[in-house]
């Protein structure tokens, strides 16, 4: 037994030393790839398109002058906020932000990516490098995955390397890091698919849990207003867009969310008159324009992108 304990203790000491050394080196690598200069985008880009899969599938940034679509599917507003914060600090030329904003964005359904034990780790791993202490506190969940990721975040223990591999390799090779190398940077997603499978599935995901109707998400609302304030402070024109939804989906959105959403839109218009709100949710699109019940496909995207171009936004 003594021999066993001696060996184990020695092995543990070696492991701890190695973890400390790797944490030191990893911390340096992380600081390097998080340098502001790496977040610089083309100086001519003045419009950022942000949000979840709704803006990702709707707005073709190739057709919108001086714009860049960096939306990422299932992105919660807390992550959008930190992403925007980081990019704005490196890109003072940004004058417009287009943000997808639908009732599902302020439902507790959107919190699944933050608090469900399965999804927490995925989004934490993707966005951890952007978060500050308050952000990490806000996404606290009593799961083991959260605890492990928190420890990794706090003590610079290597995270999910598959998401960071490109960044680390570029730092080691002293190559230039591009914005698209970051795991949280998405892009316009064009799809020619048209699959109407089951309208109740997205409705359940967005607005129900175990058959019970969900409530508004406090954390989504908190960061929604923080995004508005961030844009306000930086004199950026914020354009909130409710992207098209199929009428079968729209009709199933619980009344609570329909009215709370309307109230929020009204409140924003009162508190922040500079914010533009555009509602395409009931835009008359044929079925063939939809990828599924709540996303447009490439045909729908072309129509809505053209519509956005007609709106009173200065893209220069």
């Amino acid at each position, binding site marked *: 037994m003594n021999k066993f304990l001696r060996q184990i203790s020695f092995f543990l000491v070696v*492991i701890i030393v190695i973890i400390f050394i790797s944490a030191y080196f990893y911390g340096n690598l992380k600081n390097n790839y998080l340098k502001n200069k790496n977040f610089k985008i083309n100086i001519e880009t003045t419009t950022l398109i942000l949000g979840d899969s709704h803006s990702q599938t709707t707005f073709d940034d190739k057709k919108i002058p001086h714009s860049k679509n960096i939306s990422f599917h299932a992105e919660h507003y807390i992550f959008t906020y930190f992403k925007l914060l980081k990019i704005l600090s490196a890109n003072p030329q940004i004058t417009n932000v287009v943000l997808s904003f639908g009732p599902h964005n302020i439902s507790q359904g959107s919190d699944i990516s933050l608090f469900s034990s399965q999804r927490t*780790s995925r989004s934490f*791993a993707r966005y951890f490098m952007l978060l500050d202490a308050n952000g990490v506190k806000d996404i606290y969940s009593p799961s*083991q*995955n959260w*605890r*492990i*990721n928190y420890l990794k975040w706090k003590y610079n223990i290597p995270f*999910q390397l598959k998401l960071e591999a490109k960044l680390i390799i570029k730092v080691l090779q002293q190559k230039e890091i591009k914005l698209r190398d970051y795991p949280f940077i998405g892009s316009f997603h064009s799809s020619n698919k048209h699959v109407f499978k089951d309208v109740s599935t997205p409705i359940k995901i967005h607005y129900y849990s175990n058959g019970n109707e969900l409530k508004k998400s406090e954390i989504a609302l908190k960061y929604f207003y923080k995004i508005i304030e961030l844009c306000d402070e930086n004199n950026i024109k914020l354009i909130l867009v409710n992207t098209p939804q199929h009428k079968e989906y729209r009709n199933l959105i619980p009344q609570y969310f329909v009215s709370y959403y309307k109230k929020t839109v009204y409140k924003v218009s009162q508190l922040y008159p500079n914010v533009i709100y555009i509602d395409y949710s009931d835009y008359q699109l044929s079925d063939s324009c939809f990828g599924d019940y709540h996303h447009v496909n490439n045909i729908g995207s072309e129509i809505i992108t053209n519509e956005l171009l007609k709106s009173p936004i200065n893209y220069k």
Partner: protein
Amino acid sequence: MKFTSFEFIIFFIIVFTIYWFVFKNSIRKQNVLILISSYFFYGYWDYRFLSLIFISSLLDFLLAKKMQSEDNENRRKGMLIISLISNIGMLGVFKYYNFFSNSFNEMYQNLFGNDLGFVTLNLILPIGISFYTFQTLSYTIDVYRQKLKASNDPITFFAYVSFFPQLVAGPIERAVNLLPQFEKERFFDYDRAKDGLRQILWGVFKKVVIADNVGTYVDQFYNNPELYSGSNLALGAFYFAFQIYCDFSGYSDIAIGTARMFGFNLMKNFNYPYFSRDIGEFWRRWHISLSTWFRDYLYIPLGGSKVDSKARLFFNVLTIFIVSGLWHGANWTFIVWGFLNAMLFFPSILTGRNRKYLNTIGDGNRFPSFKEISKMFLTFIMVNLLWIFFRANTVSDAIIYISNIFVESFFTMPTKLGGIPMIVLLIIMEWRSRTKNHALENLQEKRFIRWGGYISLIMLIIIFTGEEKVFIYFQF
């Protein structure tokens, strides 16, 4: 309490310390400690589960004792029947009642337009119920067959049934093997403990680095197969084969390694099943404790392969595979999976070639021959296709998944290749050690190379941890 949790590490250190330092001179105290800690381990999920395992253990303990002292064969048989009915009854109510009730209602409704009015029960499926039920069943059947003496010590017997390393997902230990180990004095053995730790390390690696990692891709592919190319769906099926293998065999490795740390030897549950050359060999290497259980307590009593007619043989094979499928879960997907396995297995048993490959593939050689690789590949493809039924939510989902694989885009490059490097590492490590109990057993390399390997595995576990999924076999 999951093996891969902080709680388990603390729990393990406390129990290990008391077991070897405080109670090292008393088997009885060690058994009491195992019993208490096992009930704590199990109750940590949900304390309500404890009543079931307690009732099951108590019933079988009393019935076996009574059976032993009884000379009248009919009464002995009656006691066995009581044990079978109560154990299978509990399993049936908690695991299968809703499935059969829904299925009969649906069938009746399709035939006659109205349902039978069977209600569904709002029951939680107790974790590991299928495992410990089969373990206690083996005990009473063996006592009935007079292969084993009934235990006189309730502490020993209850500790055997609830032994925490293998309680929730096996290996399903026979009383003949495990119970006597509770009755003997246990000594701390440095080499055994060291090997136990290595096996635990390998098991955690398989679970955290491979199963949980590829499981993320598997979920994406299976949840929305219509969104992915045929090549990606084929990759998804490939990933699931490794997810389920690494998840379950990883758990078994941790269980066996943990038991070794306490001086117990559990049976081998997986013997590198994907290195099999035909379906018969696969089933001798996959979930061995369950396959042999069904062989000894179902297949052989039915007559096994020593029956007069081919129809009867077919019935026996079909029964064992269908029941095995049903054991995995109350869903038609598992029944279809069992049925298809029987269809694949039956020709080999009919031609007497089911025990053709009893040796280890590439025995004595570093690499397999081309012929062996071809057979291994073909077997893997067949097993892989059947796993789709096992993973899909419904039989029609499985058919949609398969039909979406074999389309034009099957010949495009898959995009989600992130799980491949670790699977390659697994295959290399397991191929090297295919004659051993686990990949890290008895490594001959120099110490610094061995330690380098262990440290690399630990670092990989640290990097990959945080995306953990529940062990798949817990649901069974």
